[in-house]
């Protein structure tokens, strides 16, 4: 993951109501980024940009009244959420067929209720 650094040494730079960074898609799935963006929608709008090789440009746009500290906190939470979403994707990939199997097994002898 690459980030835009400011002179202050903070991991993100808050400029003009936005924080821009790139995500390395070798570390995170695109679906994880999209889901993190969706989940954070109440706090910021995540603009998902171009994919360049393995790099994905993302810009977090904040409501007009958002201060720098609040924006940086949202960005921190965004990346925490991104990590969680990546875990979810990993679990989902491993278990999707098992869920289907369990559901099929659950209803394999289901009886359709008679009409009233």
């Amino acid at each position, binding site marked *: 993951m690459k980030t835009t650094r400011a002179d202050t040494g903070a991991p993100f730079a808050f400029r003009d109501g936005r924080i821009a960074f790139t995500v390395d898609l070798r570390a995170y799935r695109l679906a994880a980024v999209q889901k993190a963006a969706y989940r954070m929608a109440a706090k910021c709008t995540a603009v998902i940009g171009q994919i360049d090789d393995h790099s994905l440009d993302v810009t977090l746009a904040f409501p007009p009244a958002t201060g720098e500290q609040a924006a940086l906190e949202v960005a921190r939470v965004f990346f925490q959420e991104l990590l969680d979403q990546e875990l979810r994707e990993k679990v989902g990939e491993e278990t999707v067929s098992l869920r289907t199997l369990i559901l099929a097994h659950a209803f394999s002898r289901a009886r359709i209720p008679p009409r*009233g």
Partner: protein
Amino acid sequence: MHPVFQPRSAYAPRAGYCLLPLRLGHLDGNTYIVTNDVGEYVRLERDELVAFVERRLAKDTNAYRTLKSRHFLYEDDSSVAFDLLALKYRSRVDRIAEFTGLHIFVVTLRCDHSCQYCQVSRQSEDVTQYDMTEAHADKALDLVFRSPSERIKIEFQGGEPLLNFPLVCRIVERAQELNQRHRRDLQFVITSNLSRLSDDVLSFCHEHGVYLSTSLDGPADLHDSQRPTRGGGSYQKTIDGIHRAREVLGPDRVSALMTTTPRSLHRVHEIIDEYVRLGFHGIFLRSLSPYGFATRSLVKRYGVEDWLDFYKRGLSHILRINAGGYLLREDYTTILLQKIFSPLGSAYVDLQSPAGIGIGALVYNYDGAVYASDEGRMLAEMGDQTFRLGHVDQEDYEALMTSEALLSSLSDTMLEGSPMCADCPFLPYCGADPVFHRATQGDAVGHKAFSSFCAKQMGVLRHLIGLLETDAEARDILLRWV
């Protein structure tokens, strides 16, 4: 032949394990929760969670043993987890096949109260054109018994149903007559402010096994200010009705509900104590719903966080009351506990996926229109007919139950396929609420990041899981409510 005892190593866990289907989410701090489709949960620290997902969790840890016992992982030499998960899941969703058990008859819009949070377009007492006709009532009853549900509850709502008591009597008697043939487990409830509870009403309720449900918003001044009536004294009328109903019908045949308004927020202890004083053993700390023109203005006067604070303080007080020896359940908490711990989950219509609209409850309005839920009817009073399924004069049962209005609302909003919900660890304890999201966001699915319904659910569940895991005394009390 001498028996051969295998060495300890023969019984050690196998080298590898695999994940079973689960959802995960952040609780607080460094703590996460994982849940599965049958409502089991485990709390884990993040490093434990990551190790578990990456399949390197040590097998001699408590976390490993707990995850295994609650069907979050399986080892290669056993398929018992699959069988148990399938069995539990089927038990949990079996009630869907029961179909519609709650049938609400809006017998009139007339009312003698002017509640601040009224969710219907109530009419004055002398305007009979807003009463259900006998013909519509009869057709609605025919629809009731088309449901395959073995348990049928007919609930009378309004307005004030006792202002059209003759029709209530007709419906009860006709339903019982029809039930001679249909042989269902039949129950009746009248929701009433009890101000019209005459001896004749009580006698009829006693004879026909009718339950009563009323509203009680707390101490007299609070109740009276929120539920004004001509001549005043709504609180005293309700209290008198409760006492008289208990004398004639029995102590368990009348229940009460409260509604949280801005005035309630700082008086939760007084409200709860009022229920205790009156001998109730349950209280539902119910938030305002966003229906009705009057309610809309009230909803904006407090937010989810305000209500969550109200709820947490209230639950804490209720737990203290229980610890002191008096049984008092918080009803919404009890519903969630059932979803967490009961193999059958909960039958609460408003917390189901697929949603309970139509397939859990149907509403027959005073004018003969049929709605998928009571909230859908309230929404219609505000001009949105999305959840109107048809009319008793025009549609038969099949047409109503296979209408696009119902089926699309059900399928589109299933949590298992909704953004954010599908991955949410609280999914097994939650439900779809298409009417709420239609009312608040203009879309039945709703964007959950902006949903106060979602925020409320998450807040309550996080708090509840926290109590269960960190407060042994609270856990003991809560488990007795299941």
